[in-house]
Structure formats: structure tokens, C-alpha cells
């Protein structure tokens, strides 16, 4: 089942109602809509394809189990990302190697293999400069930046997703933007 099979017009809330009404297959619509987006977020947070896939898989399973608690007044994406962010944090904490991906030395960044970024078969894939700049951000700054500017969550949604306060989130996003501006100077010139 996919959006191409007659479900494109259904809102997320409509799909949720269908699933809760017993149409388990309808859940595939939600998975199709958001799996790639969740995966790109998880991969940028965890910097490892296999770990990211595991986190996303677990996210969708937990979301399915908790679907009855989803409230239509909130965006499904924000609700889903709340689970995803927790899964990514848990995965990072379990491995205890999150800091390994925080490279602060420019020379080390340029010279190092793209650790943790694999094509799913173990082969390293070079990160482009933008990806690398994001990867260098401190984890909390990276998380806030990605949620705000890449995944498009509002600050109030981010509060629910991260558990952090509004001021802290805005500060993190601002610091991330400042850091990225410095790292990406000249990238989009010409």
C-alpha cells in the first residue's frame, strides 16, 4: 500500500483513524511518507547507517503501538519525531561513542575518512561539505538545527520533542547557525 494507491488525499490523521479502525495495512502509508525523512535525521544524528536504520525501525514500531495516543491537534510529524529523537538519543547513549563524530579540527575533518557514514554495505561514503559541517556540530546543536531548519519543526513542537525549554532551543539553533556560517563560508559563492 502506498500513497500512489489511492491514499494520497488522506491526511495523516485520516490514516491514523483507519489504522485504529482495524486497517493495519494503512499504516504503510505513514511509513512510506516518513521513513526516508526519519532515516536522514537519524543518520545525521547517529552518523551510522545501520544504527540509524535500527532506530527508525524501532521508532515506527513504537509509534504503531502508541498510535491510539496520537492526538489530531498535533502534527503527526512532530509526534513521530518525539519518538525518533528519543530512539536516537538512546542509541547514542547505548553505544557511548557519540563524541567520536564531533570533529573540531579542520585538517582532521578534511583528511579523515568519513567515519560512521557507510553505504549500508560497509563502504565509506565521503560526506559533502555541508554534511560534514553539520556533523561537526555539538550533538545538541546538531539536533536543534536539524529539527528546526531541515525537518521544519516549530519551536513549540521542538519543546515537546526534545524536552528542552524555548530559550535553550533558540540558543542552540542560533549557535548552530553561527557555527555553520563560519564553516560554510564560500561554499555557495559564484
Amino acid at each position, binding site marked *: 500500500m*502506498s500513497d500512489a494507491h489511492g491514499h494520497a488525499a488522506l491526511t495523516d490523521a485520516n490514516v491514523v483513524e483507519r489504522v485504529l479502525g482495524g486497517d493495519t495495512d494503512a499504516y504503510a502509508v505513514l511509513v*512510506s511518507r516518513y521513513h526516508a525523512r526519519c532515516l536522514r535525521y537519524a543518520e545525521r544524528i547517529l552518523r551510522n547507517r545501520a544504527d540509524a536504520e535500527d532506530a527508525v525501525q524501532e521508532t515506527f514500531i513504537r509509534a504503531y*503501538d502508541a498510535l491510539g495516543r496520537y492526538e489530531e491537534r498535533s502534527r503527526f510529524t512532530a509526534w513521530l519525531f518525539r519518538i525518533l529523537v528519543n530512539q536516537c538519543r538512546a542509541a547514542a547513549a547505548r553505544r557511548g561513542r557519540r563524541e567520536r563524530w564531533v570533529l573540531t579540527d579542520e585538517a582532521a575533518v578534511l583528511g579523515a575518512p568519513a567515519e560512521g557514514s557507510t553505504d549500508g554495505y560497509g563502504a565509506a561514503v565521503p560526506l559533502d561539505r555541508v554534511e560534514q559541517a*553539520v556533523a561537526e556540530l555539538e550533538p545538541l546543536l546538531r539536533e536543534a538545527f536539524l529539527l528546526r531548519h531541515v525537518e521544519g519543526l516549530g519551536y513549540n513542537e521542538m519543546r515537546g520533542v526534545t524536552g528542552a525549554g524555548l530559550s535553550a532551543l533558540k*540558543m*542552540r539553533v*542560533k549557535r548552530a*547557525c553561527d557555527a*555553520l556560517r563560519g564553516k560554510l563560508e564560500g*561554499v555557495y559563492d559564484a
Partner: protein
Amino acid sequence: MREEPWDVSDEADEDGTPPVVRQAAAHLRRGGASDERAVAAVMAAVRGRRAPRRSRPASWRRLTAARTWHLSPLAAAGLAASLVGVGALGAFGLRGGVDRAPAVAVGPADGRTVDTAPQTAPTGGPAFASQGDPAPTHVVRFVLAAPSVSSGSAVSRVTLVGDFNGWNAEATPMRWDAAARAWMTVVALPAGRYVYAFVLDGRRWVADPAAPLAPEDGFGASNSVVVVAPATGGAT
């Protein structure tokens, strides 16, 4: 990492975002087509799980969530006095000034009601079987001793919720009986054990102060229990 307050409105960072960062964000949003194999893997995992069900309304969860109330000593004394008053009303009777006013009256479906106090049922299933009858119903009267708006209270509407009406806060409104100074409604129920509560003004969810409480409902609060007995031998 020390975090300073950032005094800007919710969306105010849009204009302050450096162009290079906006372009970078747009770059990071590209791609990401759905992976059919991954979707299939998720669906294979969820098909073996119990189907999700709609949980209770958000209002119920908000009302039953654990919370801390801060009261001044004077307010606390007033609240305690009010609760004692309500308890006394429930204990000594409301209806027509009689000396006993149970929260629930149970009787056969012909409308003849028999006063009875709510019973605590053993856990694990209905307290009474239908004894072979085709599920006869009984008129159950629910009574909540609470003052109305006209008597100076803030409560202007009370509804009954329970497992018999799907915990729908709009399905079973209660009527204010000025003579009895109580909110009342009647519901036809087959014999069995039911969990219920009252909703005040569509917001406040309260257990019946005159009925036994059910075990924790899993959301941090308790409800009340009524057991409807078969008509034979009278209501219990």
C-alpha cells in the same frame, strides 16, 4: 554548555538565519525517496503485534495526570470542609430528604427501582452472570451529590462516563434534581460490573464519592465501580 535566554519570538529566527545556512538547510532536505524494502520490513514487524486502539480522550489523560496543587492554608481548610460536606451528603441521604441516598439505584427494566449501594466486584470479570436470561437490563440510577450553579457552585453541567458508554463525556448528561440537591441520570444496563466516573463542566473528572473505587486505571487515577445484580432476588 551554558545556555543563555534567547529573547526572540517563536518564528523570529527566519529573518536572522544567514543565507548560507538557509541554502545548506535546503541542500540537506533534498532526496530521501521512500525505501520500499524498509517500509515492508516495518510492516512485517507491526503485523505481528497487537492492533493499536484509541486511548481515552486527551481531556481524560490531562485530568488524571499526576499533578501538584498548591493551596494556601485557608483554601485548604475550605476545600477540606467542602469535601466533608459532600461526603456527609452522600452518607446521610439526598433524595427527598430521606435518610439514605445511595449513589446508585438498581431495579428491573420496568422502571421500578430498588435502592442499593454500589458493590465492589471481584476482579477478573463481571460479578454476576445473566443466569440464562437474554441479558435483561436494569435501570441504574447514578446520583452525584454536588451543588449546582444556582446554589452557588461553579458546576453547571455534569455527565456520566463509564465503560458502558465508551467513556464518552457527551453521551450521558445528568439532570440536576433541585429537590434532591443532586445530579441524576438513569442508564439501562445488563447485569455486570461497571467502572464509571463523573465529568464536571466537561473538564473535571471525579470518582463517585459515595462508591467504592476501582483499582488504578493505569493513568494515575481511580474510578468508581458499580455492580448490577440480576433481578432475581432483588438488586444488590
